[in-house]
């Protein structure tokens, strides 16, 4: 049986049909994104996929319509330009944890603060996969990677809380094992006329999973399910009890004005029609 995702997939790209390792979660998120787009009935010619550089950055290169594969850490800047130039477009940005939180941290903060009407999906697999598995700002304390063979000595970033603090209109976190919930969140994110951030805790069995003895892709996903805690349940738990857990659910959904709408309304008011 042909995979239903292939209908929307550029099949002439290197490593056809794709370059992700067996068991990787990125392909899952790719298809969840397409499902969300289809369930919303969007015109595919008006949906632009944007990515940075790295395993997750490659997602956009397989989208069969308009795509912009940009520089490591910078996709949100490019995505902002696209949205401001043509607000009719739906702009979806896939990013890895390294580029979202390290090199692109300021872009994340500023884009969330401005509330640019974008859907930013961060695939958080706790390491830089494309370069062979080095620690990133989301690697858990003690996590073993190629640049932290004795265990990471840096406390990890909670990106959802960061984006929430920046004022983003929508924030959600799921793991790759929450198929239906992710699709629903991406749908809400696309419809939200503000900056919408969806984090997907995902497996990198080749590097992070193997080095930390977390098993293959399926085993890692079972681990995600076991360690997921809903937002509501997490509220009654101590920081200590929450260590190593993934707080999942729709974390933020608030009414804020989108940046592109603000600028275009201003331009319409001040335009002399020249």
């Amino acid at each position, binding site marked *: 049986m042909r995979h239903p995702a292939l209908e929307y997939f550029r099949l002439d790209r290197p490593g056809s049909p794709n370059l992700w390792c067996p068991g990787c979660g990125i392909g899952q998120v790719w298809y969840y994104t397409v499902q969300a787009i289809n369930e919303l009935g969007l015109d595919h010619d008006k949906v632009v996929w944007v990515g940075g550089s790295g395993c997750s950055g490659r997602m956009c290169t397989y989208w069969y319509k308009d795509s*912009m594969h940009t520089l490591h850490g910078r996709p949100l*800047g490019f*995505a902002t330009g*696209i949205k401001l130039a*043509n607000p009719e477009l739906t702009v979806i940005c896939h990013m890895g944890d390294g580029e979202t939180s390290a090199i692109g941290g300021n872009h994340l903060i500023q884009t969330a603060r401005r509330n640019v009407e974008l859907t930013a999906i961060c695939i958080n697999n706790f390491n830089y996969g494309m370069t062979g598995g080095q620690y990133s700002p989301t690697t858990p304390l003690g996590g073993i990677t190629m640049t932290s063979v004795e265990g990471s000595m840096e406390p990890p970033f909670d990106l959802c809380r960061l984006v929430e603090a920046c004022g983003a209109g929508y924030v959600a976190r799921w793991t790759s094992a929450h198929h239906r919930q992710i699709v629903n969140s991406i749908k809400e994110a696309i419809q939200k006329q503000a900056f919408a951030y969806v984090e997907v805790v995902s497996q990198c069995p080749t590097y992070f999973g193997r080095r930390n003895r977390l098993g293959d892709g399926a085993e890692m996903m079972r681990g995600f399910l076991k360690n997921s805690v809903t937002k509501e349940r997490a509220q009654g738990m101590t920081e200590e009890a929450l260590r190593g857990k993934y707080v999942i659910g729709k974390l933020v959904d608030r009414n804020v004005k989108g940046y592109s709408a603000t600028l275009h309304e201003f331009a319409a008011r001040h335009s002399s029609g020249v």
Partner: protein
Amino acid sequence: MAAGCGLFAGYPISPATEISEVLSRRLFGVGGIFVQGADELDSLAIVIGASCAGKKAMTATSGNGISLMQENIGYAAMTETPCVIVDVQRAGPGTGIATKSMQGDIYQVRYGSNSDYSIIALAPDSPQEMFDLTVEAFNLSEQYRVPTFILADELVGHMMEKVEIPPAEKIHVLNRKKPDVPPDKFVPFRAASDTDVPAMPSFGDGYALPISSFARNESGSPSTSMQVQHQLVTRLWNKVEKKADEIARIETEYLEDADVAVLSYGVPARSVHRAVQDARREGVKVGYVRLITIWPFPDRKIKEIAEGVKTILVAEMNMGKVVREVQRAAEGAAKVSLLSKPGVEAHTPLEVANALKGLGA
């Protein structure tokens, strides 16, 4: 705005900030969008994204800012995204002197990002040319799908002079060529054979445009093949360099019988012009050459000039940059000397006159 700029994004930096300030007040009035970027990387990323979505877009910066933009400049060159970058050059290196002049970024705008690509750079010598050349920069950028620079001096950036703005119908505005085939026949990076420039649809046009700065084949698919790489890099280079005679503009005076030509660009050209006129009144056979286009370098025109004179004196506000290009282009046909002044103020006419006397002219 006259050229059709629909979006500006820039980060405050002296001495380029005035461009942001004015556009923040004026651009919305013509239906455009102004954004103050979070930094130079953000600013140029927004500009490139906007250009791919169909808006003509520009940024302005200086000094450290142009250093920070280098990664995105390479991205724009590789993805062939039209954009205009104004570099109001300040004295450097490093933070240097934010409010003083120097022509230090000649090579940086040309070779600053990794590997081989081509760009266009124009050097205005007056506020009038800041206007005229910005329109031209947009046109060239659209026509050749390359980042195009206004390589201005701080001195011209802070100069107040009368500027004549022609009526809109007299301003020649060029737009990028859109595909003339239906989407199913469209090959994203196949260039027309006579121009080396592919047609460019915008996001949302239905052409499934795959933008990426990977080395890619004509269909936009990433490739590590040597053949694909060679074809791509050669085309990115040739589409500008092979058109150098068409693109590159210079201004000359008194060359017919000149023994010495004084070559300059930007604000120093104003002093050179005065010094050459004064010398001519004293009967000295000296000519005047001003580069309006720095990149692509006008090799052929410089060679012709070199063949007609004994010496070319290059006056520039740096330790000697364009002089190397002149030496290369002259191919030994004339002696090439440098009148260097590493910034703050431009050469005075007296300094140029003394240098001419030093050459025995």
